[in-house]
């Protein structure tokens, strides 16, 4: 392992929280906006605003596409890459978070009275 790679591992630990925070903030915003749009379409169609599994898949896929695109625009991304943290890692964090949000929504549907 080169000296720079060793420095990168240390830096990754330090920078990760900032990159994750920026990524999660933007992913959540995108996901909420998309979900509101889907809910609006659902209400117009006369079905539940929460939608079904098709809505969940759509929300995850569209959010994933957004975050992969968005990861290239983050200031934090260039700084993180300069420290050896890959763009794919940043995008993967966003995608995992979008999936987590959908799982939470599915879980909310299963609650009694939902």
């Amino acid at each position, binding site marked *: 392992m*080169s000296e720079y*790679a060793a420095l990168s591992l240390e830096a990754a630990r*330090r920078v990760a929280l900032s990159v994750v925070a920026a990524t999660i903030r933007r992913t959540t915003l995108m996901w909420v906006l998309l979900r509101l749009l889907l809910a609006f379409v659902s209400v117009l169609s006369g079905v539940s605003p929460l939608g079904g599994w098709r809505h969940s898949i759509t929300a995850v896929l569209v959010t994933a596409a957004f975050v992969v695109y968005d990861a290239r625009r983050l200031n934090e991304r260039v700084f993180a*890459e*300069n420290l050896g943290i890959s*763009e794919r890692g940043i995008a993967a964090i966003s995608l995992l978070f979008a999936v987590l949000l959908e799982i939470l929504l599915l879980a909310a549907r299963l609650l009694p009275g939902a």
Partner: protein
Amino acid sequence: MSPGTDAVFTADSFGVSFRGRQILKSATAWTRAGSVTAVLGRNGCGKTTLIRAALGLGRRDFGIVHFADRTWDRPRLSALARRGLFYLPDRGLLSWRRTVDWHFRAMGPITNSQIDRAAIEGLEIEQFRSRKAKTMSGGERRRAELALALTRQPICLIADEPLAEVSPRDRVLVSNAIRRLAAKGCAILVTGHEVDDLLNLADLVVWMVGGTTHWLGTPEEARTHVQFRMDYLSSTRTYPGSGGDTAC
């Protein structure tokens, strides 16, 4: 002229097209250990496009990178950085919500005796180290970004317009810091339009025009290159070493 075997970083024969428009046909830029290469060219000629394509940050049709004794046919900045490259983009290296000090802490503990502290202090960033990037001027951000680069002690620095938005006095500070970094053996590639400062700073000059690159040699040779003076400098000034005649 070819890059030669002593080039530390070479962006070799890059071609980039966008929406049917050929931006780069075959552009090559390189830099050697301990020297500064300046890539000059008009706005929109593709300087930033070449750098971003060579670092995997932008699209490319073809082109390879030679760096750290390896050939990279699919270069990625993160992988190049792990081998000792640092990229100073034309804007947006610092996180706007974070202080300069936070960025320094993220770079790791500054305990290495090889770090040129005098060069970092020479950038005069102490007065705004505790401020967030979004509250700083363009020139202050530039100096802070360069100080971060110095902290990383790269073997190669790619700096896109390091003198942009920087006042004349601060350009001297930035130029001195870049020269000190080169003196320690770092290979540096810079772009920009501050011709006088860049020609004073550079050891080698590459001119980008028509989607390709032309090796002009030393700054003195560049100043006397008739086509370069006509098409890029387009100045009536007399440049030192130009033989006393003026450019068109």
